[in-house]
């Protein structure tokens, strides 16, 4: 979508630089004149919110790493040292720990928005899959980050999740020993998790770069689900229009983030993680952080270890395959009456799985988790492929300008 750069450096030194490395022109065509569909709603600000959160996590994380000690005997104490003795350490640490949750909240909204408006459909498959890769890297990063304070949940969460690899036939035990760097979660594990926790965010930055690149090749989707046809009529320049709208979104999101950081900083954490890790004492309930709960529920719903692991990763694979599982040619749920209902049922299913993931797997909770797990996969593997064949979509507007003119409501295309 980025047309030829119209960037003309104002100064002589600017022209000299631009003719040698046109980085300013790249920025200009990507973030200033880039045509943005003019009908984007506030759900589209979550891309900018996520970019902000990524930078915030890296900045706070780098500062925390200056004061943190990745050693099983010292890690817990070093976190308390940050909370008590480092200037504003408590704030940096709460920003980082709650920032992870906010990052996931934003990414879930971002993914849900993509699903609702069909942002994964051609020609945006690669863009979508890069997003899933970012999501996977985020999960790995968050999981390893949670281990670093070396509290009870850190240790036992790490033990449960790394034990999943023992389910791999034949080589599972060997792989798990290799991952641990020993025969249980211990100092070598903590050391490598710290190293990887520092590395992966920069890999995320790299994939985000590809994600943005792909976005700027295929252009943004929008609530109408039709592409920009006339740049003049259908779009506005990214700056100042999208930039300022994104700023509003970021400021509002920051208010939510800061509410958590300053007023309920431990709400999203587990009290057990304020008890130093003790390999001899298992907490009565081992629960992951909230953003893993739906996947945890799927893992536990399958009455076989290997099966649980396969289904848990399968839940992510569904996202990768989504562009081809959804057979409808219409992108936006606005024009798909049945899909719109199924979308909200699916959201309810995932929230339900999240709740069940937080509960002890007893009695009715087990059955409920199995039903919802089955529905999760049925949604992707049965409902979406069939729906595209049987659903009668409403007429899709001829253009973005058309959709805006008629208040987003479907109108028969004018001759």
């Amino acid at each position, binding site marked *: 979508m980025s047309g030829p750069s119209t960037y003309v450096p104002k100064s002589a030194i600017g022209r000299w630089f631009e003719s040698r490395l046109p980085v300013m022109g790249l920025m200009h065509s990507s973030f200033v004149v880039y045509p943005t569909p*003019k*009908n984007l709603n506030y759900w589209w600000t979550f891309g900018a919110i996520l970019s902000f959160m990524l930078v915030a996590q890296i900045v706070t994380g780098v500062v925390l790493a200056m004061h943190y000690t990745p050693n099983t005997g010292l890690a817990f*104490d070093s976190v*308390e040292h940050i*909370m*008590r003795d480092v200037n504003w350490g*408590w*704030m940096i640490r*709460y920003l980082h720990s709650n920032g992870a949750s906010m990052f996931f909240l934003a990414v879930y909204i971002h993914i849900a928005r993509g699903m609702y408006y069909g942002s994964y459909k051609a020609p945006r498959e690669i863009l979508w899959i890069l997003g899933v890769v970012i999501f996977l890297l985020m999960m790995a990063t968050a999981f390893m980050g949670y281990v670093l304070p070396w509290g009870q949940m850190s240790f*036992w969460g790490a*033990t*449960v999740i790394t*034990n*999943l690899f023992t*389910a791999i036939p034949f080589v599972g035990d060997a792989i798990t020993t290799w991952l641990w760097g020993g025969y*249980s979660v211990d100092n070598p594990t903590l050391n490598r998790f710290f190293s990887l926790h520092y590395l992966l965010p920069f890999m995320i930055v790299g994939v985000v770069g590809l994600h943005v690149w792909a976005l700027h090749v295929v252009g943004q989707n929008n609530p109408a689900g039709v592409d920009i046809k006339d740049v003049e009529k259908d779009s*506005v320049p990214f700056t*100042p*229009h999208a930039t*300022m*709208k994104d*700023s*509003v979104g970021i*400021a509002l999101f*920051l*208010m939510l983030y*800061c*509410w958590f*950081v*300053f*007023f*309920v*900083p*431990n*709400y*999203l954490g*587990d*009290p*057990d993680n*304020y*008890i130093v890790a003790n390999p*001899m*004492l*298992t*907490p*009565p*309930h*081992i629960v992951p952080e909230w953003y893993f709960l739906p996947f945890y529920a799927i*893992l*536990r719903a399958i*009455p076989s*270890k290997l099966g*649980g*692991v396969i289904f848990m990763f399968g839940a992510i694979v569904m996202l990768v395959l989504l562009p081809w599982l959804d057979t409808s040619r219409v992108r936006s749920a606005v024009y798909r009456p049945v899909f719109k209902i199924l979308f909200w049922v699916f959201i309810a299913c995932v929230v339900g799985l999240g*709740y069940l993931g937080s509960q*002890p*797997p*007893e009695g009715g909770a*087990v059955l409920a988790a199995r039903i919802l797990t089955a529905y999760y996969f049925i949604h992707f593997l049965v409902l979406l492929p069939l729906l595209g064949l049987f659903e009668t979509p409403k007429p899709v507007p001829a253009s973005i300008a058309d959709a*805006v003119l008629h208040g987003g409501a479907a109108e028969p295309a004018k001759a």
Partner: protein
Amino acid sequence: MISKTSLGMIAAAMFGATLFAAPISCLAEEPAAATSHVAPIPPPQDWSFAGFFGKYDQAQLQRGFQVFREVCSNCHSADHLAFRNLAEPGGPEFSIEQVKALAAQYKIKDGPNDAGDMFERPGRPSDYWPSPFANANQARTANSGALPPDMSVLAKARGIKRGFPWFIFEALPGFAYQEQGADYIVALMNGYEDDAPKGVTLDAGQNFNHYFPGNKLMMPKPLSDGQVAYTDGAPQTLQQYAKDVSAFLMWTAEPKLDVRKKTGFRVLIVLAILAGLFYATKKRIWADVQH
């Protein structure tokens, strides 16, 4: 003053060994923590440090410190508490002279000196609160096999699960509930029963407590009316002691709470103004665009 992890926790430890061997199979059969009867929800107390403008009550923290020092610290350590903390803003705020005098009453092991020997010297404000026991094994031996937990972050290490839908409200302005650990400790101090209810058999050294998970607790009732002599005229009752020491433990667990809430208030105001300005600018920019 003797505490012990409950039978439930011991059972959990054995369960943990199983978990090591086969984590997923036992996830499906996780046992309930309580063995005899379900622990009631600790009643919420009125805390000065709760809410949007909450901050610690300095006099209460000073009384709580007295209870901690005279009672709790005979068995419990508080490794992250330094004497100097007692004089810092947002805490009990004793004067630095008081803290110096207090620290000097304790013998701190130091060294080695030039001759290579360890020696004892009077404490200084920079020293950390001395542990009542040299190590965990000594603490267990002195407490019938139970290890009294460290009190530094104890108030943040205890939670109350009120279930759906309450847990959602606990995140929201006006309903925020971050004082669970303090409420639990007050309830625990008040939750002892001289005789175990019918059908509950206590082993030697165990005590019945309504609020402890599993109800069987090795720590005997630590506080009772009139036990600590307050000098500021506050009531010398179990309930008052329990509240004061819980507030103190909340402070040791979260010593920056005052500055946190004060900062947060300013941050939210600045962000609200910023959001308003951004929104007004955005409206201006988009005024000519039909969207």
